[in-house]
């Protein structure tokens, strides 16, 4: 899988896709959606779709794309390569969502939580397949949050397509399992070849699985927390694991709209009854006020 796009800039999102097999434009197709890397505190989350003609579902099953959770990393890579070889009836596409994108979405002023980001990404991939002319008639997806609203949303977005959102979909439907393999292969490769934009000194890649409860991951986070900059962008700052470490180890940061400790400018009530009315100096002209400028009366 060619992740060079991601290596160029791993602070946003990047889309990879196979060519569209000709038969997928002619015959009615089933499309499976799944993700990889939803839980880890490190590295990207990957959303993937995989589609093939209904008539070739048996062949897809024949590829042994059983429930991807039961497969090892190398088995997944071998299977992915096999799907590529038999590419004349299987197509795929995926979005790699960088940790920075996840963090900035979740921590932005306008909250854009992980479920919404997931739903929108999945929907974007289905839209992408349709725009490429794939004749999608059925969509199967694993649940992200409660299945009903997600299924309802997908049905609204794609009228005329049969949508099924179910838990454990990757064990029930071969197209979802195949999508899950694509997502996992992409995530594993992205993590393995992660290029740190921060020139870290003693960079070690012993971060384990990236899951918050993995002791190796926790140790790696503790080792790489930086009091002013937090963490490398490989880390999802919006994860509570990361946040609690920052609270303990890092400096605070105040923004102009941070809840300010004291209400500036509230004069003491007694000052309004002072003997001489305070000669209120004329405020600086609007030109200066709008630019935060005032005469310097000391250096």
């Amino acid at each position, binding site marked *: 899988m060619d992740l060079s796009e991601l290596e160029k800039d791993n602070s946003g999102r990047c889309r990879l896709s196979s060519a569209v097999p000709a038969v997928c434009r002619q015959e009615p197709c089933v499309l499976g959606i799944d993700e990889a890397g939803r839980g880890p505190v490190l590295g990207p989350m990957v959303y993937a779709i995989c589609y093939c003609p209904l008539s070739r579902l048996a062949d897809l099953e024949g590829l042994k794309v059983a429930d991807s959770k039961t497969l090892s990393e190398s088995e997944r890579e071998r299977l992915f390569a096999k799907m590529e070889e038999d590419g004349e009836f299987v197509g795929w596409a995926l979005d790699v969502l960088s940790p920075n994108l996840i963090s900035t979405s979740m921590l932005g002023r306008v909250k854009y939580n992980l479920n919404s980001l997931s739903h929108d990404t999945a929907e974007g991939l289905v839209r992408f397949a349709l725009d490429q002319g794939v004749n999608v008639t059925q969509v199967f997806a694993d649940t992200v949050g409660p299945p009903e609203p997600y299924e309802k949303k997908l049905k609204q977005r794609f009228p005329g397509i049969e949508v099924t959102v179910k838990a454990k979909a990757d064990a029930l439907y071969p197209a979802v399992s195949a999508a899950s393999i694509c997502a996992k292969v992409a995530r594993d490769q992205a993590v393995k070849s992660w290029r740190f934009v921060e020139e870290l000194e003693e960079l070690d890649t012993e971060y384990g699985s990236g899951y918050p409860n993995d002791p190796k991951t926790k140790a790696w986070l503790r080792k790489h927390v930086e009091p*002013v900059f937090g963490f490398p962008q490989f880390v999802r700052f919006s994860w509570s694991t990361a946040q609690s470490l920052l609270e303990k180890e890092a*400096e605070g940061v*105040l*923004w*102009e709209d*941070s809840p*300010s400790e004291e209400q*500036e400018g509230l004069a003491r009530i007694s000052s309004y009854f002072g003997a001489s009315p305070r000669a209120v*100096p*004329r405020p*600086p*002209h*609007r*030109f*200066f006020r*709008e*630019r*935060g*400028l*005032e*005469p*310097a*009366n*000391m*250096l």
Partner: protein
Amino acid sequence: MLPEYLKNASKKMKNGLMFVKLVHPCSGEGAIYLFNMCLQQLFEIKVFKEKHHSWFINQSVQSGGLLHFATPMDPLFLLLYYLIKADKVGKFQPIDQVVMDDMFPNCILLLKLPELEKLLQHVTQEKEINGKKYYKYSKEKTLTWLGKKVHQTMAALKTNNVNVSARVQATTAFYSSDQDSSEKEEDYIRYAYGLISDYIPQELSDDLAKY
């Protein structure tokens, strides 16, 4: 933040650049100025002060994000302050008896300005007796001089696309074309007058408004 050409001023002379505390011509309180002894030029120092700023300076983070700007300022605004103050005496006086201030003794630096006499002509009547010049504040001449300042400022506001409209609007919004030009002109005059008034005593600002 200093204009680039000042960089070598401090090299040329030991005390090329001096920070001095002088009067603020509008408030009468003290303010920091920068005097360039070589070019005999005066700069006002404005400080950018907003809450919640820090610096990255080399490999460190520094709190207290203040930014001081040195902007060239017409020293006549300071001379004018003393001339108006001395006017209460109501007679012609040598300039070195006018520009005196025990609060801000460095005001005598103003007397070293190369074109001092030319400057004074904008705002005073003068008399010469036995080769010595005596000056008296002239409100009329001053208002004419300030009128020119206001028009120069209007021109600068236009070229710099400063948002002067009385109505609060996003600074990025361009002028709505429906606003007719006389209203726009009015806004510019009002804005420029307000800016100039930041550099003159209140009473003179009121006279300027009428003018």
